[in-house]
């Protein structure tokens, strides 16, 4: 076989021109237009690519990326094995594009209970490749060039690039911390929207607001009043609500997750997003869904059928069985949706004590499996670099993983470019981890504290 025989001028030029990237060479050297589409402008950077690599290289204890290091529940993995062993080899073939029938049926049944309304599994539910793809379908289906989309900061980082890729303009509104006056530790509930500020963000170009409750990274569980405020503005301005509720089951201290779609005037303008990965601690299965009115979901279906079309069958089959079990056990102590938050609340409290014990100030999350802590007292180890465009917490997190082997994510990762320097003394920890992992994290922190006090 002729290997690389007859290498064209093109090959030669490319090898000399490494790293240029924007245009590809032409034998006639006439090409000057860029090869990539303009929709990719400004969305190529991604915090996870950098931090996942750092964690993989340096971390001894990884409390960074949000996934459990404990196993998915047995009833779920058993459902997967049963489906495979059942002899129905057609589970290896395409299923219904908008969602495997057993799964959309049980999701409709489940959410009928939760929302108190009738749902048609074929038109009010669609299955997606994780909640991530559900978000993508929402923006592509509903956000046009020139539309504004309100995003509450801090936010799960993909909202901003997805809005931009759809040609929309993100408009940010911050949660602002109101620390308790008695010097107690802050709660995620102390981070609040200013109602007047929020109202000012709505314009006639506002297409949608993205709500994430329980909120990643803070762990805030929006109260009925807070949701009422948002709902009122949505109805007044005829704005859609993209409601990312992937952590819906992870709420603590007896708090309740309230679905904004159940508020007056909201069902017809809300798309609810959910995730099997978070619900069943199986992030690698990438099964998510949307629930909403047909007049919105039909457009998501159009995007879906023109982008991925089908989701993998077997994982959907197993998740359907998981939900069937939960439907039967709903509200009972053996329900995974009761047990998981109970377990995670203990881990949360453990990590809170651990961080508080060494002088990092945790903000106690009301929900999710994330916790944000104030690292101001640890600043001394990582010097301030004036005029650096890398926010302090970014440098701190990198230093910490490289020097202490403990991985976490800087809070500035969850802010827009313009606001990256708003809060630079916070980092996010994930506590969906085995006891041994949390103990190991504590050991690192204790040792670090001792080094500081003895130096």
């Amino acid at each position, binding site marked *: 076989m002729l290997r690389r025989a007859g290498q064209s001028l093109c090959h030669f030029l490319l090898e000399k021109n490494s790293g240029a990237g924007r245009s590809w060479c032409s034998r006639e050297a006439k090409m000057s237009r860029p090869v990539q589409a303009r929709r990719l402008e400004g969305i190529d950077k991604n915090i996870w690519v950098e931090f996942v690599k750092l964690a993989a290289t340096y971390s001894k204890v990884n409390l960074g990326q949000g996934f459990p290091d404990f196993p998915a529940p047995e009833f779920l993995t058993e459902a997967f094995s049963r489906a495979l062993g059942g002899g129905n080899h057609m589970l290896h073939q395409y299923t219904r594009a908008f969602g495997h029938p057993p799964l959309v049926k049980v999701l409709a049944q489940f959410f009928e209970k939760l929302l108190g309304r009738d749902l048609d599994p074929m038109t009010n539910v669609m299955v997606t490749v994780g909640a991530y793809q559900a978000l993508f379908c929402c923006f592509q289906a509903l956000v046009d060039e020139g539309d504004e989309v309100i995003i509450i900061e801090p936010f799960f980082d993909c909202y901003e690039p997805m809005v931009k890729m759809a040609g929309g303009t993100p408009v940010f509104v911050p949660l602002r911390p109101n620390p308790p006056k008695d010097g107690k530790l802050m709660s995620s509930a102390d981070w609040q929207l200013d109602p007047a500020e929020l109202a000012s963000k709505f314009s006639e170009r506002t297409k949608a607001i993205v709500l994430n409750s329980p909120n990643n990274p803070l762990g805030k569980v929006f109260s009925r009043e807070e949701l009422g405020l948002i709902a009122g503005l949505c109805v007044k301005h005829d704005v859609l609500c993209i409601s990312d509720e992937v952590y819906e089951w992870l709420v603590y201290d007896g708090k309740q997750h309230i679905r904004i779609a159940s508020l007056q005037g909201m069902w017809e303008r809300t798309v609810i997003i959910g995730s099997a990965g978070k619900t069943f601690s199986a992030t690698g*299965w990438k099964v998510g869904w949307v629930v909403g009115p047909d*007049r919105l979901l039909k*457009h998501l279906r159009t995007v879906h059928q023109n982008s991925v079309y089908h989701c993998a*069958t077997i994982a959907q089959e197993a998740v359907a069985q998981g939900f069937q079990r939960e439907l039967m056990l709903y509200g009972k102590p053996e329900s995974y949706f009761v047990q998981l938050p109970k377990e995670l609340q203990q881990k949360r409290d453990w990590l809170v004590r651990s961080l508080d014990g060494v002088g990092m100030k945790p903000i106690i999350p009301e929900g999710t499996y994330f916790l944000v802590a104030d690292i101001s007292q640890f600043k001394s180890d990582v010097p301030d670099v004036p005029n650096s465009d890398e926010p302090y917490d970014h440098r701190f997190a990198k230093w910490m993983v490289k020097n202490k082997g403990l991985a976490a994510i800087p809070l500035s990762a969850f802010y827009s470019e313009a606001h990256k320097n708003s809060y630079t003394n916070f980092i996010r920890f994930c506590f969906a981890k085995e006891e041994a992992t949390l103990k190991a994290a504590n050991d690192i922190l204790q040792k670090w504290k001792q080094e500081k006090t003895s130096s």
Partner: protein
Amino acid sequence: MPFRHKNTRRIEGLDSNVWVEFTKVAADPSIVNLGQGLPDISPPSYVKEELAKVAAVDRLNQYTRGFGHPSLVKALSQVYEKVCGRKIDPLTDILVTVGAYGSLFSTIQALIEEGDEVIIIEPFYDCYEPMVKMAGAKPVFIPLRCKNDGNSASSADWVLDPAELASKFNSKTKAIILNTPHNPIGKVFTREELQVIADLCIKHDTLCISDEVYEWLVYKGNKHIKIAMLPGMWERTVTIGSAGKTYSVTGWKLGWSIGPEYLIKHLQVVHQNTLYTCPTPLQEALAQAFWTDYRRMDDPDCYFYSLSRELESKRDRMAQLLKEAGLKPVIPDGGYFMIVDVSTLNVDLSDVDEKQPYDYKFVKWMIASKKLSAIPLSAFCGPETKKQFEKYIRFCFIKKDSTLDAAEVILKNWNKQTG
């Protein structure tokens, strides 16, 4: 206040879909379904076993690397290095996607935009047109034409007119989409035919999106050639493959794009902003299956070759049955579809007053009266060419013996009943 929230411009007119229409109709279990490209044969047992094994490994139920599970991209790079005879970097030259469908989407979203033209060869796998439109670009069609003035015995009879093809290229042409082996006709483009396309790509500095999902399914006397391996083409080609078609596991929805780093990196940006990662357990099982076959790539028992042999005899059987029923099949050189000229049957459907092309009406009639389903070929054509192809329907033959037996009964009895 009237509801102002309509669909975005990018999806205007893209809501209808041939599959939504025909898979519903054929879902009736009493109908012998040779329509959608869905194998009803079992995937090989070692493939199913690999998936069963991964279910027991905890960490495989959590997120893996976004651009592709490490063991999978490694296996893909090894297999394709052997096939292509060139180094392929698993981390920069490969992206794992949700099916080949996801690869097509990522490629088009990454590299195509408003103002671009994209050449699509007709008939085409139906998603190419809406995906190009969703990216804001203009599809430019060119049909395969039958050499022998309508008398086609083989997929090789369907060819592009080089002058006609050349006339479709201009300064706005961003890419051409190539599909070989071809769905629906089953054509396997020859080296000479690929060279004509390559020469035009190089001359006009155009990209090539090469959909090669049926790459292993080529029948005796034919060879699958990768256009990316022609001189000057690696740097401008994204080659797409599919686990679903390679291993008869369409429901795993795993595919991949392979190409030079400076193109693949843009696909990776799209991927990280659309779904981020593909499912872990399926990728791990697929990687193991690939290792098994990589080790025996010089062995005729390798699934890449054994599946092809199995399908060749099904192809021949299908063709025979169709001929006996008075139909004119076009024997495919590759893939698992066969198109058939049904005009010889002279089924009069002029009383069916639906404004659909003849083949749509024929298939609906055939489903209702013969309990046999297929897909109308005009679903795979642009507006100008529908008339040219409306006498053809497409059958899928990656079906178990009992399904083909049931089809045989229907076809043998075809002439005994009057329509």
